[in-house]
């Protein structure tokens, strides 16, 4: 069992806002910071664009976790897009609770354009956390 877990490579979908998080992730690369490859970046204009349905669909499609990353509160390129993300995220967490999906699987993080190091760290800890949680297999769970 333990061995099974350690071989498990989590699949994580990362929705990164173009202005801060995606640029921060670029900076991590430019600075040659090494981090696990488990988060697959999908670029959106603003973290506020991330519909809860998108998150649920990602989990249903086989993702073991979802990362939403945007500008720090107060620094949103669109003034207040991320404030709406925060509100929406709370709602989303309630939904996930009802589906009995562990909290650590879906995370909201703030990464500014200058925080390459931070982005790498976020990816690292999230990957490790989900590795500990094990595969989600949401479709199988739903059936059970």
């Amino acid at each position, binding site marked *: 069992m333990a061995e099974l877990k350690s071989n498990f490579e989590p*699949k994580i*979908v990362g929705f990164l806002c173009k*202005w*801060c998080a*995606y*640029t921060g*992730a*670029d900076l*991590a*690369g*430019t600075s*040659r*910071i*090494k*981090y696990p*490859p488990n988060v*697959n*970046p*999908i*670029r*959106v*204009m*603003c973290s*506020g*664009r*991330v*519909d*809860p*349905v*998108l998150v649920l*669909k*990602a989990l249903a*499609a*086989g*993702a073991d976790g979802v990362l939403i990353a945007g*500008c720090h509160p*107060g*620094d949103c*390129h*669109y*003034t*207040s*897009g991320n404030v*709406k993300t925060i509100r*929406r995220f709370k709602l989303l967490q309630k939904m996930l609770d009802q589906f009995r999906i562990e909290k650590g699987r879906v995370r909201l993080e703030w990464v*500014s*354009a*200058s*925080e390459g190091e931070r982005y*790498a760290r976020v990816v690292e800890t999230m990957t490790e956390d989900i590795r500990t949680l094990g595969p989600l297999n949401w479709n199988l769970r739903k059936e059970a």
Partner: protein
Amino acid sequence: MAEKIGVYVCHCGTNIAQTVDCKSVVDYASGLPNVAVAREYQYMCSDPGQELIKNDIREVGLTRVVVASCSPLMHEPTFRRAVEEAGLNQFLFQMANIREQCSWISENREMATERAKAIVGAAVKRVIFQEPLEVKKVPVNPDVLVVGGGITGIEAALQIADSGKKVYLVEREPTIGGYMARFDKTFPTLDCAACILTPKMVSVGQHPNIELLSYSDVTGFSGYVGNFTAQIRKRSKYVEEEKCNGCGLCTEKCPVSVPSEFECGLGKRKAIYRPFPQAVPNIPVIDRDHCLYFTKGVCKVCVKFCPRGAIDFDQKETYLDLQVGTAILATGFDLFDASKVKQYGYGRLPNVITSLEFERMSHASGPTAGKILLKNGQMPTSVAILHCIGSRDQNNNEYCSRVCCMYSMKIAHLVHEKTGARVYEFYIDLRAFGKGYEEFYKRVLQEETIFIRGKAAEVTDVPQTPAEKGKLVVVAEDTLLGIVRRIPVDMVVLSVGFEPRKDVADVARIFSITRSQDGFFLEKHPKLAPVSTASDGIFVAGACQGPKDIPDSVAQGAAAAANALSLIDRKEVTLEPTVAVIDEESCSGCKICLGLCPYNAITFDETKKVSVVNDALCKGCGVCVAACPSGAIEQRNFTDDQLLAEVEAVCA
């Protein structure tokens, strides 16, 4: 209709190819549905690389293109142009970032290659759902806003104004001139700062194309490239600018004397004052906190003496909206507060001063009329200059402030010239990188300045030997000798470093621009777009982007001006068509989207009972899209279908 997709995998020299097996990625891509051609090439961004794409579009009849290379922030515009040139709509192109977010983050070739395949796979799936879009063109307002009237802002404003365009120059202080107006000489040429700055200040004041808004700040900034609205707050000077002729009688007669900020508190000013005689505009302001009329309701001496009746105690602050097409931020820096590092005794030991205080002392029209004096009025016989105060220090600012080495040597020269005192420089590394700088270092060495390689650990007034009695003792390791030295001196000058302005976060927020780790404004690209920002039409110049000396600041001011002028002369700019669109059929009229839009771009059509997006105002954040309960709103080029295609591809 079956799509024909072309996939191009870039080696980027060895940047990608070293960690990613490009051949294997190409093989993988060839096997994906709808992929008609898959190729690899050493540099896709080069002309031959772009030709590959163009040829395939013409010859093979590609309908979609995916380039797997660097970040879209680097070369998306390049490839879009190439695609468009070959006759395909530029939005039928998608970029797969396998460099910044793939090859550079991994040392494991196998893992990196797998990740590259996932990223390319997602782009291939996504591009199928992409639609041809038309870019929107909007005219550019030729007026420019320049924020900050230091040497950088002055240079930018003059360059633009001289080309015949209108400039609004906003300055927070009562006068323009910034720090440079407070310096004595400038390195390495030893030009007098005032001699080279004052003529430029006068030109700004008199230029028909420059509207100078002093004692003012920007409180709001909205719109988009080419069409911004800036909200300016003009603080009350309590002096009517139209009436005042700058005779200075009010200042002369004012009975209140307080420490002058311009003189670092070393000299006095009145409650109605100009910071210095060459101020532009040459109009005094009343300092409410000290004016007897405002504090005690008495005096009015200035009113009595003003020959033009220009004093107006009831003047209110006013707000005005300016329409501009571009903005240049030249908001400058703050100096490190030396009292934060208690070991150097600033604020406790009287003859420990900052470098700016030295500048004022050395300035011919400063508080000591250019004489270098101790607090007891005597000339020092020995002076220590301590480098890196607040800089290169994890306890304070990690970065090098870049100018202190040179200005410290300038101070050494001035002390030598004016007092003949023995001068010590305590340094970690000497950074004399500019034109003529190394030569200046040699000159100061020749003047027998004593350089001690070691950061000063402290300045103490507790003597250990009779020779140290009554002196300031600088303690440092002479690292070239490996011994700790205690050097008794009369005066210590702290070479304080640069910091971002205290309100830098607020300014960044107002202009929607980002900052780098050190707190300064972040440029679009450190080498290739040093004065641009991630926000089109907003430029940064000078020390607000990072510590800079005068030559570099002036160069950046001019560069920002050139960038703004180039934009203006294009006459129109294209806007990303990634706006929100509402499907009238599906809209239920719930109005949720109205309150969410940060730009008030959505209105409600009362006759049709549906929401309507105003294209010109929509900035394409997609917040309304995510919120629409009936799924009636889509964001162009970021549709649900497109994002889901990516999600499914990476989860497969």
